[in-house]
């Protein structure tokens, strides 16, 4: 089995394998590293950072739904400064590719965060979260507005030489248009998808189960939507795609690669099986060897329609 080449490229970013852990589902790596071998992964994406610390939303923040969960964490994070001081030293030791995810309330804040962090050697790429329901500009969610996504990409591009991945919202009718503008404005890749907007109510109290009222739907329930979105981008735009949404095992990961993902991220699955990422790496390797595939990257976009 050892002859199989699992490496993939996301633009200029070379990953030893396509398996990343998704933002907001691994914290800053310290807890999960007690339960899995992070160095075996393609990389990890840290929890969305904002310029200043955010305490996040009041409880209840999560609720289980059929084959999924809703969350409205509210981007609770330590802020850029504490991140550099307290989290980077640990992350440096992990021996894996570190992608730093940024969320902000204004274009200036995105740029500022990236400018500060770009000098950190440990960080190998930025993932720009334009698709969190709590981040607004002029009342419009960034991620659902083409020109906002274009401008963010353009200005973040100007602020760093490191690869930029824009994490797209699935709550739009044509996600390929967003991938197109990311490409045009110099983004290196897109991640698809972030969570779908959802809600859940208690019929006895008539209150929302999540204090924030709406939350983001993740988990296996959304996988078919995510697969359709990745495929849509792949068929329309020539840009590397990082696929995610409901990946629980290597079969799901392979499905994303077949429809066009150059790499994949494991999100909600980490909560249930913190070792899922490692198992996916092994599963993909095994699958390649069964299918006589010597370079895993051959699988990318190899769908037969």
């Amino acid at each position, binding site marked *: 089995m050892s002859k199989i080449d699992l490496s993939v490229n996301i633009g200029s970013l070379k990953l030893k394998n396509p398996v990343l852990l998704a933002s907001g589902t691994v914290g800053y790596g310290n807890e999960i590293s007690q*339960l899995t071998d992070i160095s075996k992964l393609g990389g990890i994406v840290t929890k969305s950072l904002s310029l200043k610390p955010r305490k*996040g939303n*009041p409880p209840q923040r*999560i609720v289980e739904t059929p084959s999924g969960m809703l969350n409205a*964490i509210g981007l609770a994070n330590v802020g850029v400064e504490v991140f550099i001081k307290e989290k980077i030293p640990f992350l440096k030791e992990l021996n894996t590719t570190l992608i730093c995810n940024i969320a902000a309330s204004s274009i200036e804040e995105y740029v500022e965060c990236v400018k500060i962090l770009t000098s950190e050697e440990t960080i190998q790429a930025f993932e720009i979260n334009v698709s969190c329901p709590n981040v607004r500009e002029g009342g419009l969610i960034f991620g659902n507005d083409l020109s906002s996504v274009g401008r963010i990409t353009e200005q973040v591009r100007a602020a760093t030489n490191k690869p930029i991945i824009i994490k797209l919202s699935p709550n739009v009718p044509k996600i390929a248009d967003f991938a197109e503008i990311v490409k045009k404005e110099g983004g290196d890749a897109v991640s698809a998808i972030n969570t779908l907007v959802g809600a859940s109510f208690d019929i006895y109290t008539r209150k929302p189960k999540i204090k924030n009222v709406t939350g983001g739907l993740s988990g296996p329930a959304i996988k078919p939507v995510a697969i359709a979105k990745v495929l849509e981008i792949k068929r329309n735009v020539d840009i590397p795609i990082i696929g995610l949404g409901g990946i629980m095992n290597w079969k799901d990961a392979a499905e994303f690669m077949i429809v066009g993902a150059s790499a994949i991220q494991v999100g909600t699955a980490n*909560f249930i099986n*913190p070792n899922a990422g490692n198992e996916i790496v092994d599963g993909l390797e095994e699958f390649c060897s069964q299918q006589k595939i010597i370079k895993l990257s051959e699988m990318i976009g190899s769908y037969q329609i």
Partner: protein
Amino acid sequence: MLIEKSILEAKRQLGERIFQIKLFSPRIAKLAKPGQFCNIKVSESDFPLLRRPFSISNVEGDSIYFLFDIHGEGTKILSEKSLGDELDILGPLGNGFNYDGDYSTAIIVAGGLGSAPFPFLTSKLDKKKVVSFVGARNSSLVLTEDLLNVQAATDDGSLGFKGTVVELLTDYVEKNNLTSFRIFSCGPNPMLKALQQICIERNYDCQISIECAMACGFGICQGCPVETTNGEGYKLVCKDGPVFEAKEVKL
């Protein structure tokens, strides 16, 4: 904290919907401390999606005990397990009770399934005098096994005192003029709130174990915040708790 595939060694039904299970889980048993919990995968499939958190009820050699009631789909599946079945257990999680110190009486205050963590704690309190106040809606829900010096309270008076455990407790402390004691509590939120208020008013030394919805159980999802009273924002129930000083958190 680790994941251990654990074999179901024994299952006992303690009430109409209440079960105690014993699992062979030597590595978790070795690490476990009273007040910690485990996050249990109740099925092999992706349904239900999330693990379910349960307090470690007791540890006996290489085995751990859990006590639970059938609440929804997850606990129903758990109650249907057969001896020999394998469960995937993540634990031990969180910080347990802090029972060190030179108080002389340990007072346990439990409501309903809140009795779960106390057999284990009791087994560690051999140097203290222990009294236990156990309450529930009615007698069939009062869980007292492996607890010491139990006084019961029920809402309907069907067992022991008719009223709440918090009333029982305050009564006891006053009547006995207790001064050196620590309270350990676990139970439904309204009970904990009542207790918390009294402990703050009277400056009682009190630790409470709280519950909330959890996804991961070990600090990576930020899904389980509890507001702190010091104005510094939120702590995580799973990682910073589930046991907190009563005065530390807003319920």
